[in-house]
C-alpha cells in the first residue's frame, strides 16, 4: 500500500521539477504531469479497492513524528478514498483533455494544474483545520492561475472576481479557525468536535465564522455571482474541474466539519442549500450561454447536496449513500458537459445542434442531461428516490416539495437545451473536430454514469428486483444502430415476442396485467411491423422505441414502488425521444417532457407518502396510505392524468401526437396513453371507495373525465389537420375511460376496459393508416385530400371500421362500451355527467364524418391522380387489428366475462351473462347475435348492390351531371374546409384555448421572475464582494443574532 502522503510528496516534487525545466521542454513536462496524475489516481484507487474489497479499517496517517494536535494528520477511510479517487480521475482526465492548452501556456501551468489536483486531495483527507485552510488557499490560488489559461478579457474579469471573493471568504475562515483554537486549544477536527464549541461561550461565533466561510465556498445563492462568472469565462476544461473536483472537495469539507456544531447548524445548511438549489435553477431558465447555464446548474446541484447534508438527521445512515448518488451524477455529468462545451465552442445553447452530426456525442449529451435530472438508470435517480422516501418517512413534506420544485426548474432549461440540440438546424459555423484526448474523457464519464447506476441500484430498498434485461437490449440496439431498418426492426420484434412468451406465463391469474401487457407488447409488435415501410437506417429510433416499451413492460412487472417509478421514468424518457423525432416536434416534445416530469414528481410524492405510511416498499403499500391520504391519492391521480392527457393537463398531446412520425403516433397514442390508464386503474384498485376523501376525489375526477371527453371531441371537430383530429379524439376517448372508472362499479370498470381495448385497436389503425396517407400525400390538411376511396380502398375500409367503433354503432365493439357506460351511468346516478358524456358522443359523429368525408369521399384532387394504396406494411398490422375488433365485437363475452369475474372481487356484481347475452338490471345486449344479424343484412344488401350496379353507367369526375355548371377544379365541388363553420359559430367559445393560455401565462411568469432575479448579478465585482459580506451578516443575524 502506498501511503497517501505520497500524493502530496510526489506532486510537490514534480511541481518543483516542472518549475526548473526549460520552457521548451513541454513534451517532457506533459509526460511528467500525466505521470503524476496517474500515480495519484493509482494511490487513491488502490485504497478504494482495499476498502471496498478487503473491508479495511480507516487509516490515520500521522506526519512530522508527532501525534495530533501537535502535528497534522490525514485520514484515509472509505469516504476519503472514494472522493480522492473521484477527484484524481477527473484531474487525470481533465489533464488529458487540457493537454493542448497546457502545452500552449507552458510548463508552469502544468505545475499549477497538478498542485491544484493535489490540494483537493488534501482538503478531503486532512483532519487539521488550519491545514485545511492552507490547502483551500492553495486550491484558490491555483484556480486563479488556471483561469488565466484562457487569455481573454472575460477570463481576466472572472478570475479577479474569484480572487476577491475567495480572498474575503478565506480571511473569514481564518478568523474562525483562530477563535476555535482560542476556545478549544486544538486545531485538530476531532479535537474540536470533542471540545464541543457550541457549549463554550463565544464558541458559537467561532463556529459560525467557519461554517459561513465553508458555505460561501460552495457558492450559495445569491452570494455567488463570482462563481457563476468563473464557470462562464474559464476554459471549459477548467470549469469541469471546478464543478466536478473543487465542489466535491468543498462539499466533503462541509460534511466533515458538520459534527463540530452538532444539530444546531444543520437546518441552516438545509435552508441555504434549498434556496441555492431552487434560486440557481430558476435563474438558469433564462440562460442561453452554455457554460453559464452549466454554472447555474452546478451551483444548484451543490446546493442540493448541501441540503442533503443539512437534512442528515432525517436521512440517518443513508445520508452518505444519497449524497454520493447525487454527487457522482453531478460529477460525471457536469464534467462531461463542460468538456462537450469545450469541443463545441458555441456561444449559445442553440449551437449545440452541431451534435446532430455526431450521434454518439449526442447520445452522451442526452445521458448527461438525464443523469442530472435524476432519470433511471442513473445514480441520481436512486439518490433522489431514497431522499424523498426518507424525508416522507419523517413527515418532512416541505423539504420534499422544495427538492421536487428545484428539480423541476432544472428540467425546464435542461430539456429546452436537449430539444435544441436534437431538433435545430446544424449551424454552419460550428464544426466538431475529432481529438482523441477530448473525446475519451467524455466517453468515460458517460460509461461511469451507467456503471454507477447499476452498481448503486441494489443499495436501495427494493433495488435488487430491478430488471435491467430490457435496458441491456436497448443498449444492444444502440450499438447496432448502424444496421439498416429491416434488420433492427426484425431484431426488435423478435426481442419483444421473446419477452412476451417469457412474461405471459408469469402473469397468470392477473387478468388486468395480462390485458395491459397485451396492449403494450402486442401493440409494440404491430406498430413495429409498420416500420418495415421505412427505408434507410432511422438512426436512434429503435433504441428509443424499445426504451419506451421496456418502461411499459416494467410497469406490468413491477412489484415494488421503486420498480414502478423506475419503469415509469424509463417509459417517459423513451417516449420523449420518440415524440421529438417528428419534423416540427421540438416544442411539443418539450411540453410533453415538462408535463411528464411534473406528473412524475406528483407520482413520486404520492408513492413516498405510501411508503411512509408503513415503510413498505411493495406496490401494495398504495392500499394502505395513512399519511395525508387524500393528498397522496390526488397527487398520484394527477400524475397519471398527465399521461392520459386529462383536461387541464392535455395541452401537450395534440402537437405531440399530431406531429410525430407516422408509426410513432400509434405508439404514443394507442399504446403509451394506456400507461396512464394502467396507473389510474391500479391506483383506484388500491384506493377503493372507503379511504378518506376518495368519494370526493372520484366525484371530481368523474367530472374531469366527462369534461375531457367533451372538450377533446369538440377540439377534434374543428381541426383541419387529420392527425391532430385524431389526437384530440384520443383526449376525448381517454376522458371516457377516466369517467367510467371513477364510477367505481363493475359496469363502469367494464366500460373502462372496453374503451381501453377499443381505443387501443382503433386508434392504432387510424394513426397507422391516416399517418401513412399523410406521408403519401405530403400534407396534414384534410381539405387538401379527397376522393381517396378509389385510390386507397383498403385504407378506406380500415378507417370506416375504426370510426364505426368510435361512434359506438352496432355491431362493433364500440357499442359494447357505450352500452356498458350508459348502464353504469344510470346505475350510479351520475345523470349530469352522463348528459355531458352523451353530448360528447354526439359531437364525436361530427369529427368522424369529417375525417372520412374529407379524406376518402368527395372529389379527387388533381395532384393525387397517380396515388397508390399505402404500404402493405402499414395495412397488415391494421388488418390484424381489424380482425381483433371483429372478434371482440362478435364475442365480447370472451374478454368481458373474465374481466367481470375479476372485478367482482372489488365491486358488487351487476353484469350477468347467459351464453352470448349480457344482462344488467336495465336490459340486455347480445354481441354475437347482433353481429350475425348485421353481417347477414350487410351481405345481402351488398350482394344486391353488386348485382344491381352492373347496369349502372360509370361517369367521369367532371361529368356535367354533377352540377349546373361545369366544374374544372375538384376543390369547388368538395366542401371540406371549415365544414362546421355553423357549429363553430355556435360552439366556438367552448374551444377557446383557455388552458393553453393559462399554462403560457404560468411559463411567462416564471421566466419573467427569473429575468428579474438574475439582475442581482450586475457584473460589478465589488457588488459581488458586498453580497458575500452581506450574506455573512444576514446569516449571523438570523442564526445567532436572534433575528
Amino acid at each position, binding site marked *: 500500500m502506498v501511503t497517501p502522503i505520497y500524493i502530496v510528496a510526489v506532486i510537490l516534487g514534480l511541481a518543483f521539477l516542472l518549475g526548473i525545466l526549460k520552457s521548451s521542454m513541454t513534451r517532457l513536462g506533459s509526460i511528467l504531469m500525466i505521470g503524476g496524475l496517474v500515480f495519484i489516481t493509482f494511490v487513491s484507487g488502490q485504497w478504494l479497492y482495499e476498502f471496498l474489497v478487503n473491508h479495511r479499517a480507516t487509516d490515520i496517517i500521522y506526519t512530522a513524528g508527532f501525534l495530533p494536535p501537535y502535528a497534522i494528520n490525514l485520514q484515509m477511510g472509505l469516504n476519503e478514498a472514494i472522493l480522492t479517487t473521484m477527484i484524481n480521475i477527473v484531474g487525470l482526465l481533465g489533464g488529458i483533455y487540457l493537454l493542448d492548452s497546457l502545452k500552449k501556456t507552458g510548463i508552469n501551468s502544468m505545475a499549477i494544474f497538478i498542485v491544484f489536483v493535489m490540494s483537493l486531495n488534501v482538503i478531503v483527507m486532512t483532519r487539521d483545520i488550519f491545514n485545511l485552510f492552507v490547502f483551500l488557499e492553495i486550491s484558490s490560488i491555483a484556480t486563479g492561475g488556471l483561469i*488565466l489559461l484562457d487569455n481573454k478579457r472575460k477570463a481576466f474579469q472572472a478570475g479577479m472576481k474569484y*480572487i476577491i471573493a475567495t480572498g474575503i471568504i478565506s480571511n473569514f475562515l481564518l478568523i474562525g479557525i483562530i477563535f476555535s483554537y*482560542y476556545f478549544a486549544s486544538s486545531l485538530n477536527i476531532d479535537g474540536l468536535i470533542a471540545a464541543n464549541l457550541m457549549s463554550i461561550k463565544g464558541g458559537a461565533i467561532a463556529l459560525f465564522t467557519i461554517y459561513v466561510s465553508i458555505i460561501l465556498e460552495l457558492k450559495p445563492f445569491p452570494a455567488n455571482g463570482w462563481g457563476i462568472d468563473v464557470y462562464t469565462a474559464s476554459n471549459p476544461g477548467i470549469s469541469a474541474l471546478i464543478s466536478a473536483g473543487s465542489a466535491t472537495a468543498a462539499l466533503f469539507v462541509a460534511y466533515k466539519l458538520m459534527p463540530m456544531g452538532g444539530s444546531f447548524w444543520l437546518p441552516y445548511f438545509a435552508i441555504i442549500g434549498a434556496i441555492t438549489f431552487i434560486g440557481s435553477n430558476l435563474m438558469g431558465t433564462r440562460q442561453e450561454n452554455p457554460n453559464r447555464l452549466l454554472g447555474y446548474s452546478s451551483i444548484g446541484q451543490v446546493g442540493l447536496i448541501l441540503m442533503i447534508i443539512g437534512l442528515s438527521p432525517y436521512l440517518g445512515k443513508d445520508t452518505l449513500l444519497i449524497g454520493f448518488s447525487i454527487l457522482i451524477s453531478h460529477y460525471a455529468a457536469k464534467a462531461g458537459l463542460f468538456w462537450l462545451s469545450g469541443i463545441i465552442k458555441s456561444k449559445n445553447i442553440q449551437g449545440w445542434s452541431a451534435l446532430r452530426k455526431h450521434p454518439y456525442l449526442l447520445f452522451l449529451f442526452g445521458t448527461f442531461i438525464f443523469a442530472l435530472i435524476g432519470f433511471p438508470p442513473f445514480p441520481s435517480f436512486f439518490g433522489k428516490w431514497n431522499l424523498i422516501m426518507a424525508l416522507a418517512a419523517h413527515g418532512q413534506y416541505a423539504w420534499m416539495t422544495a427538492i421536487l420544485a428545484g428539480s423541476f426548474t432544472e428540467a425546464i432549461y435542461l430539456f429546452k437545451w436537449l430539444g435544441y440540440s436534437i431538433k435545430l438546424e446544424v449551424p454552419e459555423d460550428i464544426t466538431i473536430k475529432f481529438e482523441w484526448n477530448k473525446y475519451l474523457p467524455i466517453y468515460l464519464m458517460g460509461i461511469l454514469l451507467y456503471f454507477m447506476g447499476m452498481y448503486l441500484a441494489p443499495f436501495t430498498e427494493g433495488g435488487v428486483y430491478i430488471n435491467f434485461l430490457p435496458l441491456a437490449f436497448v443498449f444492444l440496439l444502440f450499438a447496432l444502430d448502424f444496421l439498416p431498418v429491416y434488420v433492427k426492426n426484425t431484431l426488435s420484434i423478435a426481442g419483444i415476442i421473446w419477452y412476451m412468451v417469457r412474461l405471459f406465463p408469469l402473469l397468470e391469474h392477473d387478468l388486468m396485467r395480462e390485458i395491459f401487457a397485451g396492449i403494450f407488447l402486442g401493440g409494440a409488435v404491430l406498430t413495429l411491423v409498420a416500420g418495415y415501410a421505412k427505408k434507410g437506417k432511422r438512426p436512434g429510433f429503435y433504441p428509443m422505441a424499445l426504451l419506451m416499451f421496456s418502461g411499459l413492460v416494467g410497469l406490468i412487472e413491477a412489484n415494488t414502488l421503486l420498480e414502478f417509478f423506475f419503469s415509469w421514468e424509463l417509459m417517459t424518457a423513451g417516449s420523449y425521444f420518440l415524440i421529438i423525432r417528428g419534423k416540427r416536434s421540438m416544442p411539443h416534445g418539450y411540453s410533453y417532457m415538462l408535463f411528464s416530469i411534473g406528473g412524475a414528481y406528483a407520482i413520486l410524492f404520492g408513492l413516498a407518502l405510501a411508503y411512509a405510511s408503513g415503510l413498505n416498499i411493495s406496490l401494495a403499500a398504495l392500499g394502505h396510505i395513512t399519511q395525508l391520504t387524500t393528498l397522496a391519492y390526488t397527487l398520484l391521480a394527477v400524475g397519471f392524468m398527465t399521461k392520459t392527457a386529462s383536461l387541464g393537463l392535455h395541452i401537450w398531446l395534440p402537437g405531440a401526437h399530431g406531429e410525430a412520425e407516422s408509426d410513432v403516433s400509434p405508439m404514443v397514442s394507442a399504446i403509451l396513453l394506456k400507461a396512464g390508464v394502467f396507473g389510474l386503474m391500479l391506483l383506484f384498485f388500491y384506493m377503493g371507495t372507503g379511504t378518506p376523501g376518495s368519494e370526493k376525489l372520484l366525484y371530481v375526477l368523474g367530472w374531469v373525465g366527462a369534461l375531457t371527453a367533451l372538450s377533446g371531441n369538440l377540439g377534434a371537430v374543428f381541426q383541419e389537420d387529420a392527425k391532430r383530429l385524431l389526437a384530440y379524439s384520443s383526449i376525448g376517448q381517454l376522458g371516457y375511460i377516466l369517467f367510467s372508472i371513477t364510477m367505481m362499479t363493475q359496469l363502469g370498470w367494464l366500460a373502462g376496459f372496453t374503451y381501453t381495448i377499443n381505443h387501443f385497436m382503433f386508434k392504432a389503425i387510424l394513426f397507422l393508416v391516416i399517418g401513412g396517407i399523410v406521408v403519401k400525400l405530403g400534407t396534414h390538411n384534410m381539405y387538401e385530400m379527397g376522393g381517396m376511396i378509389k385510390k386507397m380502398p383498403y385504407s378506406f375500409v380500415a378507417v370506416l371500421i375504426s370510426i364505426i367503433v368510435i361512434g359506438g354503432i352496432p355491431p362493433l365493439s364500440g357499442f359494447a362500451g357505450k352500452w356498458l357506460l350508459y348502464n353504469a351511468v344510470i346505475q350510479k346516478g351520475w345523470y349530469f355527467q352522463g348528459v355531458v358524456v352523451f353530448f360528447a358522443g354526439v359531437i364525436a359523429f361530427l369529427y368522424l364524418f369529417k375525417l372520412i368525408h374529407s379524406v376518402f369521399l368527395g372529389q379527387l384532387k388533381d395532384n393525387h391522380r397517380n396515388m397508390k394504396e399505402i404500404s402493405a406494411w402499414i395495412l397488415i398490422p391494421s388488418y390484424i387489428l381489424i380482425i381483433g375488433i371483429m372478434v371482440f365485437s362478435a364475442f365480447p363475452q370472451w374478454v368481458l366475462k373474465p374481466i367481470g369475474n375479476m372485478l367482482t372481487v372489488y365491486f358488487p356484481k351487476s353484469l350477468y351473462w347467459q351464453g352470448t347475452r349480457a344482462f344488467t338490471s336495465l336490459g340486455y345486449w347480445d354481441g354475437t347475435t347482433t353481429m350475425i344479424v348485421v353481417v347477414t343484412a350487410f351481405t345481402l344488401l351488398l350482394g344486391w348492390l353488386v348485382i344491381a350496379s352492373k347496369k349502372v353507367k360509370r361517369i367521369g369526375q367532371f361529368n356535367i351531371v354533377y352540377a349546373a355548371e361545369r366544374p374544372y377544379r375538384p376543390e369547388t365541388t368538395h366542401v371540406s374546409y371549415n365544414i362546421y363553420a355553423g357549429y363553430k359559430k355556435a360552439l366556438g367559445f367552448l374551444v377557446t384555448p383557455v388552458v393553453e393560455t393559462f399554462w403560457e401565462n404560468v411559463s411567462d411568469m416564471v421566466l419573467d421572475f427569473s429575468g428579474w432575479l438574475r439582475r442581482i448579478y450586475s*457584473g460589478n465585482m*465589488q457588488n459581488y*464582494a458586498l453580497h458575500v459580506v452581506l450574506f455573512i451578516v444576514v446569516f449571523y443575524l438570523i442564526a445567532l443574532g436572534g433575528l
Partner: protein
Amino acid sequence: MGYIIIITGFLLVLIGLWGILSQKNLIKIILGFTIFDTGINVVMVSIGYVKGKTAPILDIISAKDALKSVVDPVPQALVLTSIVIGLGVSALMLVYAIKLHHDKKSLDINNFKDLKW
C-alpha cells in the same frame, strides 16, 4: 494590553474590508486586502500572547524551562503561514490587475462588467 491589540487587529480588518468594498481603484482594493490580512495576523498573534513571556525560540531560552517561559507557539506558526499565503494571494491579484489594465487601460473596477446575468 491584550485587548488593545485584538481591537487594533479588528479595526485593521474593518478598515481593510471597507477599502475592498468602497474603493474603485483595483490597486487600492488590493491594498485593502493586505490591510485585512495584517489585521488578522495581529489578532492571531495577540491570541497566543501570554503576559510576561517571550518568543518561542529555543536559542534564546533554555529548552528546560521553555514551556514556562514562552507564549503559545501555534498562533505564531499560523501567522507565518498566513503571511506567506497572503503574499501569494496579493501577487496573484496584482497579476490580474496588470492583465486587466493591459486590456482596458483602466484600473477602475466599474469598467469590468462584461460578464453578467
